[in-house]
């Protein structure tokens, strides 16, 4: 069967969006985790 899909010519990303390096992206993920844990802790305390 012939494959008629359009050829994807978009270059692959090498750098993360919004950050100059991957380090920034890693800190975003870890910072988001810390924020969520803090938020969940506050929710637990407010509604306990």
């Amino acid at each position: 069967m012939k494959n008629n899909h359009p050829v994807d010519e978009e270059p692959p990303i090498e750098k993360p969006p919004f950050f100059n390096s991957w380090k920034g992206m890693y800190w975003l993920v870890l910072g988001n985790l810390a924020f969520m844990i803090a938020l969940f802790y506050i929710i637990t305390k407010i509604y306990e």
Partner: protein
Amino acid sequence: MRPLDWIVLLGTIGFIVIYGIWKTRGSQDIEGYLKGDNSMKWWTIGLSIMATQASAITFLSTPGQAYEDGMRFVQFYFGLPIAMVIISVTVIPIFYKLNVYTAYEFLENRFDLKTRSLAALLFLVQRGLAAGITIYAPAIILSTMLGWSLTITNLVIGVVVIIYTMSGGSKAVSVTQKQQMAVMMGGMIIAGIMVVSYLPDNVGFGDAVAVAGKLGKMNVVDFNWDWKTSWDDRYNFWSGITGGLFLALSYFGTDQSQVARYLGGKSIGESRLGLLFNGLLKIPMQFMILFIGVMVFVFYQFNEPPVFFNEGTKSKLYATEHATELRTLEANYSSIFEEKKQAMQSLVSALKTEDEAAIAIAETKVENLNAAGKEVREEVKALITKAVPNAETKDTDYVFISFVMKYLPAGLVGLLLAVIFAAAMSSVASEMNALASTTVVDIYKRSINPNGSPMHYVNASKVLTIAWGIIAILFATFASMLDNLIQAVNIIGSIFYGTILGIFLVAFYFKRIKGNAVFFAAILAEVVVLYCFYFTEIAFLWFNVIGCVAVIVFGFILQTLIGKNEKELVKV
């Protein structure tokens, strides 16, 4: 099920399957079939990773878990974002550099063939069992709720997945998972909105959360740790951040059903971003699903819940000579509920006026009545055990689907069932694809028939996808009901993951330890984990840590001993 529900259900599932087959049509070589030609963008990878992990059990069992136990299950995922970062930094570059098809190929490069084969076999056993449960778990619930036979439901899920996974390989799995994730998220958000809208007029969203908090369901984080008692506490911050980290490292870094998702990336950057996308969104997603379960709990504080959520088992009980006893218990349960409903209104009024004394009185009354209701439920369960042999008395997995079937309007029932079928299919497809590719690449091509043509291996992968699919359907058909479905999958995973992760960690970070030492260390570690499983009360999340640490420790000891012997032999 009404006609509109059937149209929505069949239309959604049919569209996804046909789209997956059409999108990946055409001849494929082994690179295309197993790695999707390295053409995946980061959002496809991210959604595919999330869809693989989010099985039907996630959508059936998690709201039920929140209904019973509150929000604390979310802590199980605290280690996941850390694992995503570690894998992005260390694992992805190595896999890309070696251009591997499976994670286990790397182990031969680092150690030897027997260690690669051992890790691949551990994966095949563990994932083969899990694939059966991934089909069985939703099938047992859906068959009860829809009145279908269990075998038919198993076949519907299994065969549909086999068709498009066999047809399009890894790419078909990833492509369909994008649509499946959209259906899952859309369906759950609508279900969440509906349950809140069904609350009484005088109970707003804030009141509902406050009520849930007063009844102990907003227990999201627990930092408490007691060295004597906390080891068997399945969900607290410490077990989540450590055990959850090890489990996530092992699942995303060494389990081929996940590794295949990001190995198909267009570049290292796309794969990394896909994993980090999961690291950002997984916890909010789980929080949302649990929160829907809590809202269902609040809904049932104002609307009478069934005394037992599994209607199939309840019908069987009605067919026995114990039907009168059940009727009496149900009447008792109803009268307790009517009293509780009034107490709930008092609690809501007290919360609105912030009258602490009135809150305390109403809260105590509701708690007492909830305890009385729970006692009646226990009596019903005892009756089921007595009257219906082999019947499962744990009904939390039926809480959410029971709510959906009874209260949602036509069309939305079909959509929510499509969510569950889509979730089941997305996980099973990844599992079958991974089982087939590991069997072909790590066992068949490496040790049985290394000289086949590329097309021969594509065909072998297709045949093995069907074979693993049949095994999973058979296992699902003959599996007996397990304690809690989501926990059963996680327990099976934890028994094997620690050891597999230990092998990989040694490979990445402990260059001194060689093939023979790590091979026997892995076998010893698995024995230790199995001992802990059968003879101790340690919570299953810790098996990941124990297995992993045991491989490293035994590896060091054995390498030291082997090293000494080798030196002595050299001297001789």
